């Protein structure tokens, strides 16, 4: 006999398959996408400019993977030798994997935000939630179904 620590909440947060008639509890972990790019606070603006040619944003993390900030194209200075720590968006909003999507999507919509970072309780980067992915998951929940993403 085994006891599943974390129960079905953790199973759900990891985006693993769920079933039932609903209503389903959708959480951030079910639509978690890997961060498109990361860099350290000492990276140069020139390096990050290159990264942002193929990524919508770059997450700034320390050596432990803890989120320090975020850089979007509009944050970039004109020169190429500035340190990321000096121009990054400090302490961006983050949520945890178990954040319920209904409320999160509404708050993101109200603030005009399309992505939000997801971290562990210690602040370590796990990835991000794209609002459009979350909206699609919620919209598809009307009928009895397999609630997994895959």
């Amino acid at each position: 006999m085994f006891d599943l620590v974390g129960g079905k909440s953790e199973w759900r947060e990891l985006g693993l398959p769920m079933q039932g008639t609903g209503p389903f509890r959708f959480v951030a972990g079910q639509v978690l996408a890997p961060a498109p790019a990361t860099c350290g606070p000492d990276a140069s603006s020139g390096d990050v400019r290159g990264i942002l040619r193929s990524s919508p944003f770059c997450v700034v993390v320390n050596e432990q993977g803890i989120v320090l900030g975020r850089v979007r194209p509009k944050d970039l200075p004109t020169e190429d030798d500035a340190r990321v720590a000096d121009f990054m968006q400090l302490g961006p909003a983050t949520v945890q994997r178990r954040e319920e999507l209904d409320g999160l999507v509404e708050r993101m919509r109200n603030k005009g935000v399309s992505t939000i970072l997801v971290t562990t309780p210690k602040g370590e980067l796990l990835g991000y939630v794209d609002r459009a992915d979350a909206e699609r998951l919620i919209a598809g929940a009307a009928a009895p179904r397999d609630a997994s993403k895959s």
Partner: protein
Amino acid sequence: MPTDIGVEEAQRLVREDHALLLEVLPREEYAEEHIAGAANIPLKELTSDAVDGIERDQPVIVYCDDDL
């Protein structure tokens, strides 16, 4: 006493040893949403009669909502 395991080990037991996932929450909660493939015996009904249908050598993984 049951042995505590995490999600990864549970997946391995299901995949390799055909373990049974058993939700012990009330029927209504199970019906709404449960781990895919899990069976349900509510904790209040968990008697020796209730588990008669489970093979004696089949690993059983019980779970509820979470352990926090």
